């Protein structure tokens, strides 16, 4: 059986302004698959500009890859017939970063919930539609009577974001791509929203791709993780292995940069930049890498499978080359 979504050597280059220049490589040859039979939460972590949002948008079919293909149940997403496309739009749902921007302030919040019910004919009657909406809201921990009939400005950012998760849920999707769903809500509410994503995964078998710059929440909710740096995956695998024992120097740096609630205060003293300094070709992290050596400049290091459930793109580690990231992503790799 073919995967729900399969990204096959996908790259994306954004054109430069004007007529000169090569443009910006936002995503460099990424291959991965989402298997609906083994629903999991995969976090995609990286700094601004690392390509994580580009990856999300490509998987959602919102932008076309420059090279490579995205397959939906074996068919190319770009040439999908409209009936199949409609099905894809149900199976794969998005939750975006900004819980303020996605609402039309002139409509009651009901609008974002009734529209998909109508457009996708999810319910035979109005009462059934209402029931469906209430059920979805409850599934994300909201009380329908406190939500329905309100305008966006009457609700908190956390409530609005959970309504977006409820909206995604209405479609009974197989995959939710959540792009920074909690970066604009308060720390105390993050846990609640991520908790509802976790619940959807466990209770309804929905796979989730969680795009974030926050490694700590990624660690808490996900089964596996992809760490991206400048358009490429530098480390991937079981989240426990990657976060507890990071192998790539960038992942190590990322983890050391997170301020922890701890009485040991080493944070401010850490993280000096060192490395080759200038961009020398080869490994993209070499200019900032404390372990960089001349060999790093020779070629872009390929992803190597260093453990059953982990791959790293760094010449300091050895293993057989890995092309399809699905090979190290849980739970397939852990099974």
């Amino acid at each position, binding site marked *: 059986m073919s995967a729900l979504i399969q990204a096959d050597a996908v790259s994306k280059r954004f054109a430069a302004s004007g007529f000169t220049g090569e443009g910006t490589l936002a995503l460099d040859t990424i291959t991965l698959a989402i298997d609906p039979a083994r629903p999991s939460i995969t976090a995609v972590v990286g700094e601004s500009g690392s390509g994580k949002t580009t990856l999300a948008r490509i998987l959602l079919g919102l932008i076309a890859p420059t090279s490579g293909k995205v397959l939906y149940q074996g068919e190319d997403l770009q040439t999908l017939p409209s009936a199949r496309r409609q099905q894809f739009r149900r199976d794969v749902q998005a939750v975006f970063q900004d819980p303020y921007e996605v609402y039309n302030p002139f409509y009651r919040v009901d609008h974002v919930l009734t529209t998909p019910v109508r457009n996708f004919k999810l319910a035979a009657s109005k009462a059934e539609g209402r029931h469906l909406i209430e059920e979805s809201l409850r599934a994300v921990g909201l009380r329908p009577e406190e939500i329905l009939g309100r305008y966006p400005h009457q609700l908190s950012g956390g409530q609005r974001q959970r309504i977006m998760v409820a909206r995604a849920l209405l479609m009974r999707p197989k995959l939710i791509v959540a792009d920074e769903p909690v970066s604009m809500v308060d*720390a105390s509410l993050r846990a609640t929203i991520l908790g509802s994503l*976790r619940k959807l995964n466990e209770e309804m078998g929905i796979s989730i791709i969680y795009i974030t710059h926050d490694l700590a929440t990624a*660690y808490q909710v996900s089964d596996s993780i992809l760490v991206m740096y400048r358009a490429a995956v530098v480390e991937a695998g079981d989240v426990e292995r990657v976060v507890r024992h990071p192998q790539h120097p960038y992942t190590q*740096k990322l983890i050391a*940069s*997170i*301020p*922890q609630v701890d009485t040991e205060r080493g*944070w*401010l003293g850490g993280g000096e930049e060192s490395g080759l300094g200038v961009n020398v070709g080869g490994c993209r992290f070499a200019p900032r890498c404390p372990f960089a050596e001349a060999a790093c400049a020779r070629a872009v290091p390929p992803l190597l499978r260093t453990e059953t459930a982990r791959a790293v793109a760094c010449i300091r580690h050895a293993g057989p080359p890995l092309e399809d990231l699905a090979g190290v992503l849980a739970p397939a790799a852990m099974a």
Partner: protein
Amino acid sequence: MRPVLRVEGLSVAFDHPLGLVRAVDDVSFALRPRERFGLAGESGSGKSTMALSILRMIKPPGRIDGGKVWLEDTQLSELSIEAMRQLRLQGLAMVPQGAMNSLNPVLRIGDQINDAFVDHGVALSKDAARARIDELLRTVGLKPEVARLYPHELSGGMKQRACIAIAICLNPKVIIADEPTSALDVVVQLQVMQTLARVQESLGAAIILVGHDMGLMAQFVDRLGVMYAGRLVEVAPIADIITRPRHPYTKALISSLPSLEKKAPMTGIPGLAPLLRDLPPGCAFHPRCTAAVARCRAEKPLVRAMGEDTTVACHLVDDPA
């Protein structure tokens, strides 16, 4: 030691059609020279309003309707508008929230720093001003060439450093940094906070860090104040507050932070922050507090001293023996 900044009973109110909104409610604390003091809380807890009110920068419909602020021997509310304006940057400086958007997009960075000199009547020759700007940029880890660049030519971290350079250009005694790194990546956040720590030490200034990231607070500040619904509900030295938080809200705030050490079920703080214009009776936190008793619903807890450097406003905390 004599405090560099003293806040006593500061209150800020906003006039709202549906009633008075008390954004800052009778807040008192004192800042020692060179101290790093944190103000933490959720959105809407009043921490940014608190920071602005120290600088007397509350705009209508908001107003400071009680309390006093001293910067060393100067009582700020007694200053004229012009004298207060001169005191900003020289005595008290602010690194604003979203500093990336607070730079003037059509002025070069160097000119924006120079504006501060001109406005505060610092007479510098062209060369001397340029040399001083170079020095400031170097202090915050930027190259002198940055002076000739426009904000859009800088990355987020560089813009934030430029804002720090402006904040320190007249050697303030207190720097108020309002979520200075909330829009930055963790790696850049660390670099910016290192810069801030370094310039603070070299100036000998005290710093108030406003934010909601308890991890950042734990790593950066010496003492932490936790705000809830406009009140300072707990103040304690940082090591103390993270190992033995006294107020249930502080406990919840700390435990809602995702850890990298161990996976635990994600627990948020149940419920929502209360509406400031419609606060619950008694302790404002009681509807969300898992330990609340009858007294919490009826009686507003007073701020009590729990020994040196520590205050708490909670009925459930016993007086020190």
